[in-house]
């Protein structure tokens, strides 16, 4: 397979474990995060948040607060009447609530004062009169109770969105099956918990231009939201994303605090800063949706899937956020690991009076992946098949199109399974399903799971025909190279990726390059650091820009040397004739020659994903230029006396296509394993339903996340099955490796003590309850028993590619029953 970018030349930079371009800054404390910015005359902002989960705002009185010395301005919802939201279909947020509040933590007023202490004191002097409304605290309540509505839009009552899609005749598929299983799972919500609390600084200059520095993963979308809400021309707004102190999806929405400090800066003519407290970060949330799932799968005796019907029920919290996309994602990627010839998906997202859910690492896919992979383990047991074999034997084919019209590219999942099976010593540890023949002692267990993830969403968030990523390159006559791109470094190393790729193409050292990113005044648009899109999309754009620059240098140097352009090569900071390498010039001299010939040397590159074969309504979520693959084996130790699960080691293989930098890929894999481990063992956003739907523990002490003492040993294997759509063949790694971890651990727990925990997280209480049930001769399963009744719309029917479908839905036929 040809790889984009290297034209068969041996790689000098790509694939090598270079330091990140900002590594020294980060290890010396010199990286400037949003809260590190201090401007002269800067004011501090605090936001008053609702303590009511659902209430009408009757009155806000800020007189006492305004009278406090040092208070400069106070604003409320009426100062910012225009709604916004990340998705065009969910413009349901106001920077400060206007008529009502929808969760404990919803902001109602904001203060700008000379210092943070005064702002805090003033905030507490603002008097708000609420008229409480009944609350909706769960999926069940949202489905059953239509009034009061949390929002006056959505599919019905407190249902935000319903989806019903069917690809091929699923009932016929179940009829062909030797075994049909139906299982129910619940995956609790959890949050990103970045170490950096969100912060933003706004400055409105005397010439009427606004600058916002913010810890955001999506400066372009913030830019659009600010223009809308502040009614300023977008050309008068500059958004600079500061390096994010961790994002994981939690800094991907335009946030109320960003709008608020911008407005306060405009009103006061002074810079205004806001830094959220940790408690407020819990209220920002936008984390993993709690998802209840029902999975019905038909299989042949050998484990080949004949059909699958997947239902998901999402607790969306109080606002739309990315929720419609999240809902589609809970049904999109079931088809990209194993052959699923017929597939039906039904999903529903509810509004509840809790902090809004949104995208967290893996966006909408870890929950269904958990259900699918745990069910597959149960199927393997029922059929007496080895859990690795049942997966290995039915993998989706590379370069094929799935039943729901996702185009698969390179597919290294088989290689991933082979690596971890050998690495973990699977054959010596897994001894079939008969508990009497076990090879590991009771209490020790091993489990496996696979997964796949997108390398960038095929479609942008708002409809347009422009590229999703742009790169601009400037070469100066001293040999300096500056690469400019809207992409945002959230710690994953995207700034470095740009430098490595440009260095590879231009034959220079990555540390010769200056990288300028995430500044809407200086850099071409990149849509943001979400959906694992940055390496693939900005990487391809960087290759195009660099190749165009290389062409100009090659023409100028070929002319000087009197050789054909094809003879010119760039390497080791030189531009030379490959047939006579001594004849050549330094890179800087080459730029002088090119600038003399062509004028100032600047090039651009851009990237648009290929069109998706799916054309049906709802086909916008799931398509991607490429899919990464991961497989993991977990080995656990379960104490039957306490129910405590210790994960001892995880072996994980990830098909990254091509490592642009292997040590950074390793870091992403290990970090994903860590985050998956936290989700399966302990992390949960939990609320007291009967006490005002307040968050049980909005603090880092009580929201349990793995410390060094809980983190397991990790053995990582990198598989490089290059994808023709990736830069140098590269695919994503930031999110995919999280996905197999929760189900692999759940399957290992079953192997260890024979209980199925069909609910995430697997806490000691749940394990003990299941063990007690088992001791009474029952199944030893802990998990949800049923799903709520939902009146689903008639599914939109699409013929699969195998059935001769063209990717469009069949004409709607009214069904009377």
């Amino acid at each position, binding site marked *: 397979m040809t790889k984009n970018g290297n034209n068969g030349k041996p790689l000098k930079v790509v694939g090598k*474990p270079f*330091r*990140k371009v900002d*590594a*020294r800054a*980060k*290890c*010396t*404390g010199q*990286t*400037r*995060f949003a*809260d*590190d910015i201090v401007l002269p005359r800067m004011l501090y902002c605090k936001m008053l948040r609702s303590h009511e989960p659902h209430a009408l705002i009757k009155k806000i009185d800020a007189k006492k607060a305004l009278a406090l*010395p040092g208070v400069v301005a106070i604003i409320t919802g009426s100062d910012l009447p225009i709604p916004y939201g990340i998705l065009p279909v969910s413009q349901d947020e106001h920077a400060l609530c206007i008529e009502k509040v929808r969760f404990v933590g919803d902001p109602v007023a904001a203060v700008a004062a*000379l*210092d943070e*202490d*005064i702002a805090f004191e003033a905030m507490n002097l603002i008097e708000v009169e609420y008229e409480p409304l009944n609350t909706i605290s769960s999926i069940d309540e949202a489905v059953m109770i239509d009034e009061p509505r949390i929002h006056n839009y959505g599919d019905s009552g407190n249902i935000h969105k319903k989806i019903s899609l069917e690809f091929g005749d699923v009932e016929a598929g179940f009829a062909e099956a030797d075994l049909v299983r139906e299982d129910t799972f619940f995956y609790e919500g959890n949050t990103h*918990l*970045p*170490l*950096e*609390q969100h912060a933003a600084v706004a400055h409105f200059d005397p010439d009427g231009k606004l600058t916002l520095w913010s810890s955001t993963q999506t400066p372009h979308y913030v830019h659009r939201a600010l223009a809308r809400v502040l009614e300023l021309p977008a050309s008068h707004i500059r958004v600079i994303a500061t*390096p*994010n*102190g*961790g*994002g*994981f999806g939690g800094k991907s929405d335009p946030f109320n605090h960003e709008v608020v400090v911008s407005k306060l800066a405009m009103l006061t003519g002074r810079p205004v800063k806001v830094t959220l407290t940790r408690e407020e970060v819990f209220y920002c949330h936008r984390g993993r949706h709690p998802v209840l799932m029902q999975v019905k799968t038909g299989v042949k005796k050998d484990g080949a899937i004949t059909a699958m019907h997947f239902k998901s029920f999402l607790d969306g919290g109080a606002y739309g956020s990315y929720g419609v996309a999240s809902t589609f994602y809970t049904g999109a990627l079931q088809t990209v690991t194993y052959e699923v010839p017929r597939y039906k998906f039904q999903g529903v997202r509810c509004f509840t009076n809790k902090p809004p859910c949104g995208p967290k690492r893996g966006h909408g896919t870890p929950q269904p992946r958990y259900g699918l992979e745990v069910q597959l383990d149960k199927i393997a047991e029922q059929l007496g098949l080895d859990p690795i074999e049942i997966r290995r034997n039915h993998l989706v084919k590379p370069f094929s199109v799935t039943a729901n019209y996702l185009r698969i590219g390179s597919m290294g999942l088989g290689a991933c399974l082979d*690596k971890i099976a050998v*690495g973990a010593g699977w054959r010596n540890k897994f001894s079939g399903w008969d508990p009497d023949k076990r090879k590991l002692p009771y209490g020790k267990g091993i489990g496996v799971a696979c997964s796949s993830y997108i390398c960038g969403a095929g479609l942008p968030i708002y409809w347009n025909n422009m590229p999703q990523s742009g790169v601009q390159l400037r070469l100066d006559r001293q040999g300096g190279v500056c690469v400019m791109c809207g992409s945002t470094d*959230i*710690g*994953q*190393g995207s700034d470095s990726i740009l430098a490595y790729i440009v260095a590879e193409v231009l034959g220079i050292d990555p540390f010769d390059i200056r990288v300028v990113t995430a500044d809407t005044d200086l850099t071409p648009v990149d849509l943001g650091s979400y959906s694992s899109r940055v390496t693939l999309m900005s990487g391809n754009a960087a290759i195009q820009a660099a190749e165009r620059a290389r062409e100009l240098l090659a023409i100028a140097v070929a002319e000087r040397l009197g050789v054909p352009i094809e003879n010119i090569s760039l390497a080791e900071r030189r531009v030379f004739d490959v047939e006579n390498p001594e004849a050549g010039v330094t890179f800087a001299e080459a730029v002088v020659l090119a600038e003399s010939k062509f004028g100032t040397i600047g090039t651009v590159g851009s990237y648009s994903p290929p069109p998706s074969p799916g054309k049906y309504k709802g086909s916008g979520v799931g398509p991607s230029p490429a899919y990464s693959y991961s497989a993991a084996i977990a080995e656990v130790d379960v104490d039957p006396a306490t129910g405590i699960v210790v994960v001892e080691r995880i072996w994980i293989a990830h098909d990254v296509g091509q490592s642009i930098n*292997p*040590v950074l*890929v*390793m*870091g992403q894999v*290990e*970090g994903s*394993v*860590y*985050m998956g*481990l936290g989700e399966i063992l302990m992390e949960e956003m939990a609320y007291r339903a009967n006490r005002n739907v307040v968050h049980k523990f909005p*603090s*880092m*002490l009580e929201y349990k*996340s793995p*410390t*060094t*003492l809980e*983190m397991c040993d*990790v*053995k*990582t*294997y*990198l598989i490089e099955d290059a994808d023709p759509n990736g830069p140098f063949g590269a695919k994503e790694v930031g999110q995919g490796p999280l996905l197999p971890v929760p189900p692999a651990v759940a399957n290992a727990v079953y192997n260890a003590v024979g209980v199925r925990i069909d609910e995430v997280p697997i806490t000691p209480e749940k394990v003990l309850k299941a063990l007690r049930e088992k001791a009474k001769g029952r199944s030893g399963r802990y998990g949800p028993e049923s799903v709520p009744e939902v009146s689903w719309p008639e599914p939109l029917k699409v013929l699969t590619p195998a059935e001769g479908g063209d990717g469009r839905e069949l004409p709607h036929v009214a069904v009377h029953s």
Partner: protein
Amino acid sequence: MSESEKNKAHIKFFLNGEETEVAFAPHKTLLEVLREDLGLTGTKHGCELGECGTCTVLVDGRSILSCLMLGLDAEEREVTTIEGMAEAGELHPLQDAFADLGAAQCGYCSPGFLLAAKELLEKHPKPDRELIKEALSGNLCRCTGYIKIYEAVEVAAARLRGEEMELPRESLYGCE
């Protein structure tokens, strides 16, 4: 002038080896004094409640949470922040190893980890993996899964002992 700005406290202490004087509102924590009154923003905060370890600095060589210590209590003491870890532009071996192994991803928790690790290696030049985990268990990192941090501490420990140590191949490229 606000209430909190009146009657500033004044202390003298040794900050990164330099005698330093600073005036600040007396209720301020050492974290706030460092960041706001001295402009040393390398010390970060993640909770300001003593839960995450991000604001770790060394006081008289011991790692402490600067969000839980009053600035006033720093009087006459030796305080080391991340800004004082590299000397004359030369990275400390821990910083070098963190940079080489990508142990600083977003870099926000890194100053705290580096200082906690510095204290560890000063007390235990040859810590095993379990001791490293124990010593760093008060610092949260959401990016790395801690693995690259352990590996970096091990590399730095060996180099500080004067041993030659290559970066482990498995850390850079994964298992064969």
